[in-house]
């Protein structure tokens, strides 16, 4: 057992698992079912969709050993181009960058 640090969560690992395991068990099954559904799709016409690609990259970050997975995934799902657009292309955001 190791103790740590300034920005620690007040719960122990054991307590975190006891409290939050069930809801995250459910979430990971939802993601798995979503991916299976994409495999079973009537037509496979979006294998290269920018949102699907971003999710696949995010899942790689999820299984990595970074201590800042949330922030890393936020950046994967962000537009890497930070300049101002010349004109508004659409009113709403898509959740991932198109290119």
């Amino acid at each position, binding site marked *: 057992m190791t103790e740590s640090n300034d920005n620690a969560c007040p719960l122990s690992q054991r307590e975190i698992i006891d409290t939050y395991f069930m809801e995250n068990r459910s979430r990971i099954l939802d993601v798995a079912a979503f991916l299976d559904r994409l495999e079973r799709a009537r037509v496979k016409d979006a294998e290269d969709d920018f949102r699907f690609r971003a999710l696949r990259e995010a899942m790689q970050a999820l299984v990595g050993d970074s201590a800042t997975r*949330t922030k890393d995934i936020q950046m994967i799902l962000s537009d890497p181009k930070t300049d101002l657009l010349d004109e508004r292309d659409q009113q709403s955001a898509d959740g991932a960058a198109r290119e």
Partner: protein
Amino acid sequence: MNWIDPHVHMVSRTTTDYEQMAMAGCVALSEPAFWAGYDRSSAAVFHDYFNHITTFEPQRAADYGIAHYCWLCLNPKEGEDMGLTREVLAFIPEFLERPTVLGIGEIGLNRVTKREMESFVAHVDLAMEHEQLILIHTPHLEDKYKGTLQIVEALKRDSRVTPDRVLIDHAEEHTIDMIREAGFWTGLTLYPNTKMAMDRAVDIVEIYGSERLCVNSACDWGPSVPLAVPAFAMAMRRRGHGAELIEQIVHANPAAFFGQCPKFVIPG
């Protein structure tokens, strides 16, 4: 526990929502001017809207013992139209004198365009001219990082702007560092899908501390929950945090930020 929701759009909520918020301990809230779900057709519509949020909503809230304050602007979603922006900016000063107006907001960027930036800078200029507090909206989803970066840089370029009189809202894990490093107040929006989930907001408190940090429901006509602030308090307790820390985030912090406007009366 008494709490303040610093970001709500009550024009699109029912009176029953006011009642339930009051029963759950809400003592004050603030309503930034925002988008109607479609681009408005003329400046006159904004005039009516500003009247609505400075007269009708404070009365509806008062019926349940809630103090209602508001912020005025043309929302970033409509900022692409500079002509409309100028027309609306021209009559905002006449509303700034009203007793429940705290400042200019929620201003910022949407798709992060050149004209949106021009509209944003014009709003900041108006706020500085009239010594107003500022409430900032940061863009959604993939636009949030670049939009927050552009907003923070623009505010730093204006030497009249004092960071402790500006709250930058809808912060998330990848934008909070730049907001706090520049000394601004941070807002976390507790939305079910698109912004900050309850437990991620608690993580942010644990990682960054509670100083200059507020949480809000941003409840409007979309998927959103008027009782998100007390739900956050519950998530904090579930995580083992005490009443003093929770009270600071849900009451003392928003009261301190709003209290910089002499019109804000700290409710019981």
